[in-house]
């Protein structure tokens, strides 16, 4: 596996043969990666791949089982407090204090980082503006919508001006507008030189934001690279999507259209992938592949030829979809 190193300099995060065991279960099973200063690094992978477990080790709230981990050049086991002082963490699930107002959720946390009350208040107002929640500053947190809570979590994670921000599925549950706002804000942070580590189940998000990404599966890194390079090297150029009528539940009847398409693809020496609702056929020339399939009496209810995406890369590498 080639390491696409963006820039030289001491990495912000460096993991070598990193392992996390929960009892007998290997949540993270020997991974290697490094994140360079100023880089936006994404972790993709299906549920249970070990993304959050990795993030928790980096944020020093989950001890490393074995292997090496350095965060901001420090050892999480020995220097947890020092690391956390320079880190921003947006956990997968919002942990907001329901007994506090929106603004207090930021000011109270600011105090844990050693800001004075005046600084905390000033900072809270800035950050609420930043995530467009200024008009809700004095409201209670409970009645906020899910997307607003998410934005508040993100604002709170930035209270200490972190050098590295860990965002665990930052845009899950956001409406498209809120998501674009967030992307734009993350760009701003990036321009400011902040290093970002994010997990996501959205391919477009990874393609938009990430300089580099890893795809994880079952605790391991399956592949690593820039979004473009992965699509170019790990997958065909085109993908033919074939949809068939409702298949009888639980049958694998060879007469079934999907099965016939798979056989035809094999004859054409094309790789195919059967999903619950469609069959994907990978080909460098989509039109020619579709014509070939038609010659083999494959008649789908609908067909679509499109460019390959990261999702296809993932399917190619693991035989599984990213969002399960």
């Amino acid at each position: 596996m080639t390491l696409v190193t963006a820039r030289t300099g001491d990495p912000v995060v460096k993991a070598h043969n990193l392992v996390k065991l929960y009892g007998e279960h290997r949540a993270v099973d020997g991974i290697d990666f490094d994140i360079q200063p100023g880089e936006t690094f994404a972790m993709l992978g299906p549920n249970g791949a070990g993304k959050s477990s990795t993030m928790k080790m980096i944020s020093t709230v989950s001890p490393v089982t074995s292997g090496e981990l350095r965060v901001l050049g420090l050892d999480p086991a020995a220097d947890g407090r020092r690391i956390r002082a320079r880190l921003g963490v947006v956990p997968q699930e919002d942990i907001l204090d329901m007994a506090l107002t929106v603004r207090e959720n930021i000011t109270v946390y600011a105090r844990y980082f050693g800001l004075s009350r005046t600084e905390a208040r000033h900072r809270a107002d800035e950050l609420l503006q930043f995530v467009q929640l200024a008009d809700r500053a004095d409201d209670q947190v409970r009645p906020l919508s899910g997307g607003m809570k998410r934005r508040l979590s993100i604002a709170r994670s930035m209270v200490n001006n972190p050098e590295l921000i860990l965002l665990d599925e930052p845009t899950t549950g956001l409406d498209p507008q809120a998501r674009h706002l967030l992307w734009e804000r993350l760009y701003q942070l990036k321009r400011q030189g902040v290093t970002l580590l994010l997990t996501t189940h959205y391919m477009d998000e990874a393609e938009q934001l990430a300089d580099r990404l890893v795809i994880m599966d079952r605790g391991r890194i399956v592949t690593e690279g820039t979004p473009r390079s992965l699509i170019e090297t790990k997958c065909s150029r085109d993908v033919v999507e074939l949809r068939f009528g409702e298949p009888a539940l639980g049958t694998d009847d060879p007469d079934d259209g999907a099965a016939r398409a798979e056989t035809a693809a094999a004859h054409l020496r094309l790789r195919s992938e059967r999903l619950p609702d469609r069959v994907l056929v990978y080909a460098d020339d989509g039109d020619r592949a579709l014509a070939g399939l038609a010659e083999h009496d494959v008649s789908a209810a609908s067909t679509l030829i499109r460019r390959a995406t990261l999702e296809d890369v993932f399917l190619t590498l693991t035989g599984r979809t990213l969002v399960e």
Partner: protein
Amino acid sequence: MLPSTASRPATAHTGQTKVPGLFVGMLRVFEHNLISYRRMWLTLASGVFEPLMYLLGMGYGMGSIIGDLSFRGDVVTYAAFIGPGLMASSAMNGTLFDTTYNFFFKLRESRQYDGMLVTPLTIGGLVGGELSWAVARGAIYSAFFVLTLIGLDLAEPLHALSAWPATLLTGWAFGAVGATLTSYARAWTDFDIMELIVQPMFLASTAFFPLTVFPEWAQSIVWATPLFHAVDLTRALALGTAGWSDLVHVAYLVVMGLVFGVLARRRLSRLLLE
């Protein structure tokens, strides 16, 4: 508009700057609670009034039937007898409530502690801060008690004041136990088991009767319970009959607070840093 870098705290961005330490962490947790409870002063107030009702109802109501009692050779009214007992019990209840129900909520339901721990706060600061808050809350209740004892002429002002620190010790010792037990709780119903222990202990603790009313075999059981030591110590101080032998009570509560404080810290590291 990007948050200005001008407001960047001096503490961020350099490796060797000062990061808030244990004691500061405790203070922040305390402050966090203070802000959370600002809007919940009614909850706090109820903790003051409930034991006072007991004192008035039982002390004067039952007291008129029971008459005077003897404590360490002094004859005292029934109200003067149970006043310090209730004061110690309310210190226990105040901290137990915080370190059980409230603690459990933040630990398991809202998972607030997980959020607090991704700051420079440590487990030690978290446990210390939560315990200090619980003790402070109990201390407010007992301060009202001190004033009531003085106001109703149930104790000499200086004696009543001297009993106040004993309730802080009581609160801390029970708070540490509460936090430790809560770390083992899996569901809200587990606290019913705790009530099953606390209620009988409260009734048998000598808050309402002198130890001598129990048969000899039962006296040693009562003597072994922590609330007995808290009640007896508080009463001895409030009635001005404390002596060196009361250091046994102090030692019992200090050891209890230390042992369970360490246990609570260890349990929470296991739960929160897994």
